[in-house]
């Protein structure tokens, strides 16, 4: 079973690394969206500092959602997804491997580039660890919850817009706790409460989302 998990993970990572240009797209999107805000709001340091946590988190949310559709679509179209589900391994485990691979290529780069954006938006340096922690806990939740939405819409020809409609409301708790944590860190208030909530959400999503995703994939594949 561990072998099957590792095999799917390795396969998905290899596939992703061979399409390097696509790898960069969500990242560039993330940076461009964040850049738009100072242009729209004005370059005053006070305003930017105040809205920085919200901007970074909303941009991360959008970037994650836009890259989500790729999680199962290619495998669905060439039929390998069906083959995966036909094996005797538990589908939720294989699905979890795919979600982890997807997070490694889309979620992790967002975390790595976020200090740069925090710098651009004048986020105080002392809030940076909280920002990184909130992204590290929050982006896997988004990948896990998003996977359910992708699994439900993968059979549809134009599922992209529908996918955002389905999953964005479900991201509300993550957004609230994550942006709230960074906000508190900027004001030098305790942040442990929000981070614990994020961790709880992560555990909950890690437990339930693979099962729901596997069930949805079965439905979509008919």
């Amino acid at each position, binding site marked *: 079973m561990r072998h099957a998990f590792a095999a799917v993970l390795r396969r998905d990572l290899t596939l992703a690394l061979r399409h390097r240009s696509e790898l960069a797209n969500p990242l560039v999107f993330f940076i461009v969206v964040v850049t738009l805000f100072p242009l729209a709001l004005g370059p005053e340091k006070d305003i930017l500092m105040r809205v920085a946590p919200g901007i970074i988190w909303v941009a991360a949310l959008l970037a994650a959602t836009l890259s989500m559709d790729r999680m199962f679509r290619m495998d669905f179209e060439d039929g390998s997804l069906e083959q995966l589900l036909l094996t005797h391994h538990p589908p939720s485990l294989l699905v979890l491997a795919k979600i982890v691979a997807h997070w490694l290529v889309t979620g992790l780069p967002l975390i790595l580039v976020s200090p740069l954006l925090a710098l651009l938006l004048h986020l105080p340096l002392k809030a940076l660890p909280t920002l990184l922690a909130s992204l590290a806990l929050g982006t896997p939740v988004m990948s896990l*919850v998003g996977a*359910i939405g992708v699994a*439900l*819409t993968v*059979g*549809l020809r134009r*599922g992209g817009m*529908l996918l955002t*409609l*389905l999953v*964005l*409301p*479900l991201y*509300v*708790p993550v957004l*609230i*706790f994550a942006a*709230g944590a960074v906000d508190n860190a900027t004001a030098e208030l305790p942040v442990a409460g929000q981070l614990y*909530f994020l961790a709880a*959400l992560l555990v909950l999503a890690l437990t*339930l989302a693979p099962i*729901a995703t596997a*069930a*949805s994939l079965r*439905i*979509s594949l*008919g």
Partner: protein
Amino acid sequence: MFHWIHKYGSPKYFYHFSRRWTPWIGGLTALLLVVGLYWGLVVAPADYQQGDSYRIMFVHVPAAWMSMFVYMAMAVSGVIVLVWRMKVAEAFMRASAPLGASFTFLALVTGSLWGKPMWGTYWVWDARLTSELILLFLYLGFIALQSAVEDRRTAARAGAVLALVGVVNIPIIHYSVEWWSTLHQGATVTKIDAPSITLDMLLPLLIMAVAFTTYFVTVALMRARVEILEAEANSNWARELADKTGD
């Protein structure tokens, strides 16, 4: 138990059952609405703080209750759809979604109309309002998914999963939003120290709540009947029915 499920779960039986009962439940709805509205809008005393504008509550509160009740009903049908693949539950779930969305919308609109004279603004980012708005988004997502998937049964099962995911999330969303607004909001405008409600206001409110529920049952039965006829258009009993009525 299973006998019961098989009997009521057959689309044909449900169709006739629903047809027989709709006029009765519909009649009861009309009666309750008339009594509840008259009692609430004319007979019940005016509030000593809010005057007559509190009367919108007789529509607003039942609508808000129904917005959550309908989602729960959809989730329960969702379980039945996924476990027993009952066609009637599929029809009921699909039929309920637009109704639930309408109740949610009605609750939001009446709430904001009440908010203007009371709070001085149509909208505040209060916890309850925000989670009601997100509930509306959840309904809209469900409806969009239903219209996007072409195969009726696949759509119903996908919708069932979505409804269940939503039900797990609704309490989380509700409490996180509550937490968020208590963090950000200083003096809260919602905590008007209202006197505990008098019987003269409570009774019409309860009558309105029952009326809204029977209204939902009536319209959901009618909509589910249409769903079933569309799904079963090729079956013998549906054809016989069409031959009999001549259309």
